[in-house]
């Protein structure tokens, strides 16, 4: 039985819809917590216009990165925007990419949407793109992200000591990695169970 690449029971991956998604994403960026959990860049809120420009820039980089909106899967209509999942810095020569994922509204986190989305993107990265490994970065002020990555088979590979500064102290950067054989073993295990 072949699962579809872009859908699970509750979520689907889709291209961003600038007309509708930019407003929603703009609201997320005004929650500094959302941006701070996501990466080390200064948390900068964006207008819908700036988000649209970002989507356009992503389109231009189609060969180096893969960006998907994560939406609820509905019987009719496009579904509600939950977040995004992205493979960036795709290094075709060495078969490596970086995974990024975010669920925008706090109320939508912890509902299992991230788990379903990450399952789809891992299959896409390893099966479809034939990559050998994926990396993912988080920070030690975000234990939820570390636990999430570990639950999906990623292993902590690098601890960048005191890499970032927020709220008047320094925090470690945590680099995780998942290799294709590890993912295949887990996927085979899931299929059997």
């Amino acid at each position: 039985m072949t699962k579809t690449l872009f859908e699970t029971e509750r979520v689907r991956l889709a291209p961003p819809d600038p007309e509708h998604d930019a407003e929603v994403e703009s609201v997320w960026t005004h929650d500094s917590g959302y941006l701070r959990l996501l990466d080390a860049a200064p948390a900068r809120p964006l207008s819908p216009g700036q988000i649209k420009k970002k989507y356009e820039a992503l389109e231009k980089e189609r060969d180096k990165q893969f960006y998907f909106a994560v939406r609820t899967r509905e019987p009719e209509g496009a579904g509600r925007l939950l977040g995004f999942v992205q493979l960036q810095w795709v290094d075709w020569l060495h078969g490596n990419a970086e995974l990024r994922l975010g669920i925008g509204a706090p109320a939508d986190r912890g509902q299992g949407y991230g788990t379903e989305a990450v399952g789809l993107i891992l299959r896409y990265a390893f099966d479809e793109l034939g990559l050998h490994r994926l990396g993912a970065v988080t920070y030690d002020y975000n234990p939820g992200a570390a636990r999430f990555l570990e639950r999906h088979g990623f292993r902590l590979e690098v601890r960048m000591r005191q890499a970032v500064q927020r709220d008047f102290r320094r925090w470690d950067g945590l680099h995780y990695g998942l290799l294709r054989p590890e993912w295949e073993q887990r996927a085979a295990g899931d299929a059997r169970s």
Partner: protein
Amino acid sequence: MLSDLLRGRLVRLAAQDAERDAATLARWSWDSEFQRLIDSDAARPQTAKFYAADVARRAERENGFPFNIHTLDGDRLIGFTSIWVINGASGEGRVGIGIGERANWGRGYGTDALQVLLGYAFAELNLARVSLETFAENTRAIRSYQKAGFTLEGVQREWARRDGRRGDVVVMSILQEEYRHDENI
């Protein structure tokens, strides 16, 4: 750790939107007293088109963080404030602020917006020092800045010329340690 950085008691800071805000910014520029207080350039009203381009251009600058000021009550756009990292290696920032309409002056919005901006400057941009310049005659603003924790640092004598006279510009600053002390962090 994740307390909302951009929200104060009276206002919140938000992204500027070149298209959406241009008309409001243009309208404020017609108030010449506002224009004269905001900076030393010769006061001139501008079109919405000018502001659309101006806002868009500022948004591109990596070391600049421009924000709109919205009231929490009613979510009204009442002004703008920004912080520029003028020396990354030294951790030095410069702020500016403007509340557009007189009806919103003297109501604590400016002080609150500045306090939010300072939280961002010190807890997110990790600056060591934040400074600003304002006209010596702008006593209302100076009081507001002092309430937000700024100290008068120096006077640039006879900097600007208006109405046939030269006026002083004052420089004010706040250091990270002072901010943390004031906020008990």
